[in-house]
C-alpha cells in the first residue's frame, strides 16, 4: 500500500541547515528549533513539530514509534540500505491510552489504566451510572452496589452473584405465614396437578397392571386347554396340517382354538370344557372356538399391546405432571417474593 503525502505537507526537501542563519532547520516547515514541542522520526532522524503535522499535543506521551510523512510515503528514511525500498512501509505506532476518558497517559504493562488510581476512578464512574429500578436516588444505588460487592468478598463470587436458583427452592413459610398460605397452599392449579398425579400413581397404574396379570393368567389357561384338546383329539384322528394362528407351531396335530372372550377373569374348568367341547359349534361357554379365526385374529397380542401402551402413556403423563408442578411452584415462589418486598 502506497501512502501518499497529505495535502498540507510540502514536497520533500533535504535541507538541513538554513543558508542565511546557518542554524539547523527541522520539520516540514524548515524552521530552526524554537522550543516548540517536536517529535523525532525513527526513519530519517529529523525532528517535526506536532502542530505542523496536525497532531494534538495531548498525544505527546502516547507515541510509540513515529515516522514522518516522508518516511511513510517511502521518500526518506531507509536506514538499512540493504532493504528493498518498495517493501519497507513505515507506519507510526501509538501506545494505548488510559481507559479513563480524559486521561491521555499511556497504559501500564498488562493494564488498561495508566495508574491504580485511574483504575479505581474508572470503576467508580461505572458504578455511579448504575440505575436500579425503584430507587430514585443515585447515591442509594451506589451504596447498594457497595453492599453487593462487600457481601460477595471475592471477585469470582461477585461474578456469579444472582445465579442461584432461589426461586426454585421451596420457601420457608415462616417468612410470612399468612401470605404463604394464601398464595401457595391454596393455589387451585397446583392442587389440581398434584391430585392428578396421585390419582395416576395410586389408582390407574396399578389398575392396568392388574389387568395385564389377569390376561396373562387367562392365556396360560388357554395354552393348557389347547394342549389338552390336542391330546384328546390328536390321539384318535389324524389331523391335516393346520396352519395355526399367531402361535406359529409346526406341529401337525396341534389344536388351537381362537380363545377370544369378553370375560377373561372367570376361567372355566379345563376338564368340564374339554368334555362338553364339540368341533361343530364356534363358541362354547362364551369363548370363541373357531380354529382359523379371521375375525378375532391376533386378539391376545393386541390386548397385551394395548395394556402396555396404557402403562407407558400413564408413566409419561405422571412425569409430565411432575414437571408442571415444579414450574408452577416456581411461579408461585416468584409471586410470593414480589409481594413480600412490596
Amino acid at each position, binding site marked *: 500500500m502506497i501512502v501518499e503525502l497529505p495535502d498540507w505537507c510540502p514536497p520533500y526537501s533535504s535541507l538541513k541547515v538554513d543558508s542565511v542563519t546557518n542554524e539547523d532547520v527541522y520539520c516540514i516547515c524548515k524552521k530552526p528549533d524554537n522550543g516548540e514541542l517536536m517529535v523525532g522520526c525513527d526513519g530519517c532522524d529529523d525532528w517535526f513539530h506536532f502542530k505542523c503535522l496536525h497532531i494534538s499535543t495531548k498525544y505527546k506521551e502516547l507515541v510509540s514509534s513515529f515516522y514522518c510523512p516522508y518516511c511513510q510515503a517511502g521518500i526518506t528514511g531507509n536506514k538499512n540500505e540493504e532493504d528493498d525500498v518498495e517493501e519497507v512501509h513505515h507506519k507510526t505506532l501509538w501506545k494505548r491510552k488510559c481507559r479513563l476518558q480524559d486521561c491521555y497517559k499511556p497504559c501500564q504493562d498488562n493494564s488498561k489504566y495508566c495508574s491504580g488510581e485511574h483504575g479505581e476512578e474508572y470503576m467508580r464512574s461505572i458504578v455511579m451510572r448504575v440505575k436500579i*429500578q425503584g430507587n430514585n436516588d443515585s447515591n442509594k444505588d451506589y451504596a447498594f452496589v457497595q453492599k453487593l460487592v462487600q457481601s460477595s468478598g471475592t471477585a469470582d463470587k461477585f461474578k456469579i452473584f444472582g445465579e442461584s436458583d432461589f426461586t426454585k427452592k421451596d420457601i420457608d413459610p415462616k417468612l410470612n405465614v399468612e401470605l404463604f398460605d394464601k398464595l401457595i397452599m391454596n393455589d387451585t392449579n397446583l392442587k389440581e396437578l398434584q391430585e392428578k398425579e396421585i390419582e395416576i400413581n395410586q389408582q390407574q397404574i396399578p389398575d392396568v397392571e392388574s389387568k395385564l396379570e389377569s390376561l396373562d393368567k387367562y392365556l396360560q389357561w388357554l395354552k393348557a386347554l389347547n394342549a389338552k384338546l390336542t391330546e384328546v383329539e390328536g390321539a384318535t384322528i389324524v389331523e391335516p396340517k393346520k396352519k395355526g394362528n399367531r402361535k406359529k407351531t409346526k406341529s401337525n396335530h396341534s389344536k388351537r382354538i381362537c380363545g377370544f372372550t369378553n370375560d377373561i377373569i372367570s376361567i372355566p374348568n379345563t376338564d368340564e370344557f374339554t368334555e362338553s367341547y364339540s368341533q361343530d359349534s364356534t363358541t362354547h361357554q362364551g369363548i370363541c372356538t373357531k380354529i382359523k379365526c379371521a375375525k378375532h385374529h391376533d386378539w391376545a397380542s393386541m390386548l397385551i399391546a394395548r395394556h402396555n401402551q396404557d402403562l407407558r402413556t400413564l408413566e409419561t403423563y405422571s412425569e409430565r405432571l411432575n414437571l*408442571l408442578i415444579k414450574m*408452577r411452584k416456581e*411461579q408461585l415462589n416468584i*409471586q410470593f417474593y414480589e409481594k413480600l418486598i412490596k
Partner: protein
Amino acid sequence: MLELIGKISDLVHLTDGLSTSACFSPDGTKLAIVDGLSVVIYDISSGEVFQTILTSHVKSISQVCWSPDGQCVATASDDFTINVLHLLYGQLYILMGHTAPVISLCYNSKGNLLCSSSMDESIKIWDTLNGTLMRTISAHSEAVVSIDICTFDSSILSSGSFDGLIRIFDTATGHCLKTLTYDKDWKRETGVVPISQVKFSKNAKFLLVKSLDGVVKIWDCVRGNVVRTFPLQDDNDIDTNKKDGEEQIDNKQQGKQLKQMNYSCGMDFLYPEDDDKPPIVISGYDNGEIYCWDTSDKKLLQLLKSDEYHKDSPIISIDCHGSMVCSLSLNGECYLWTWK
C-alpha cells in the same frame, strides 16, 4: 357518557414514563398493564393485583397483548424481542428476529399466530405454538407503528406506518391486498401524514385510523374511501353539519396548520351493549384529553379535559371491552370507565 368506575393507579403503583400499554383480557375480567419491565395483571372484580409477571426484557416495553384464550400475554420491547408469557407457568418463548424496536403486536383470533411490527419497517408473523418465525412482510419504508387483526375475521391484517401508508395484507400468504393511502402526494406538500394507529371494526369491513396530526378517520376497506372524519375541537371553524359546501371547503383549505403529535396515542371502538345504538370512537391525545364521538352522525358526545384526570400527560393507551374502557397515560395514571 363515560362514567368513572375506579382509579387503578391507586392500587397498582405504576412508574412514571414507563407504563406504556394496558389491555383487557378477552373475557373482560382482568387488565394487563405494563409497568417498567414487568406486566401487572389486575383483577377487575376483586380490585386487587392478581399477579406480577416478570419479563426477560432489558429495555422498555411498547405494547402488551392477550392471547384469545386468556392464558398468555405477549410483550413487545425496545430490545428487539417479544416475550410470550403464560400466566400460570411463566415464560414460554422469547421471539427474536426483529432488528429494531418492536412497536406493536396482535394475535389472530385462533391464537396460533402472533403478528408483530417494528421500526425495522417489517411485519413478522410468528407461530406461537412452536415459537418460530413463519413469515416476514416488508411493505413499508418507515417504522410500522400499528397493526391490527379483527377478532372475528383473521384473514386480513392491517398496518399503519410513519410513511403515511395504510396497507391491508392477507395473513395466510403475506401478500398485500390493498393500500388505502398514498405515500407521496403530488398535489400538496402536506398531503401525506404519518399514521399512528389502526383498528378494525367488528366486521372487518371498516378501519379506524389515526394519523399524527390528530385526525381520526374511518375508511371503508373494500371501496377504499373515507367514510367518516373526526377532527379535533381546535379546528372548530368547520361545522360539519352545515350544508353549505363552499364555505366548508374554504375553511378546510385555510385551517391547514398541521398539528404534529409527539406520541402515538390510543384509540378504540366502543360497541354499546344496547344493539340499537351506534358504535362510539374513543380517542386520546397528547395533552391528556379524551374525545368520544358517535360514528353515525359524527357528533362529539363527550370531551374529558386533561386537568382532572390524566393531568396533561399523553394518553398512551385506550382499550375497550364491552362497555368498559381503560385509559392509561404516560405518567402512570390509569382509570377504568364504563359507558352509560
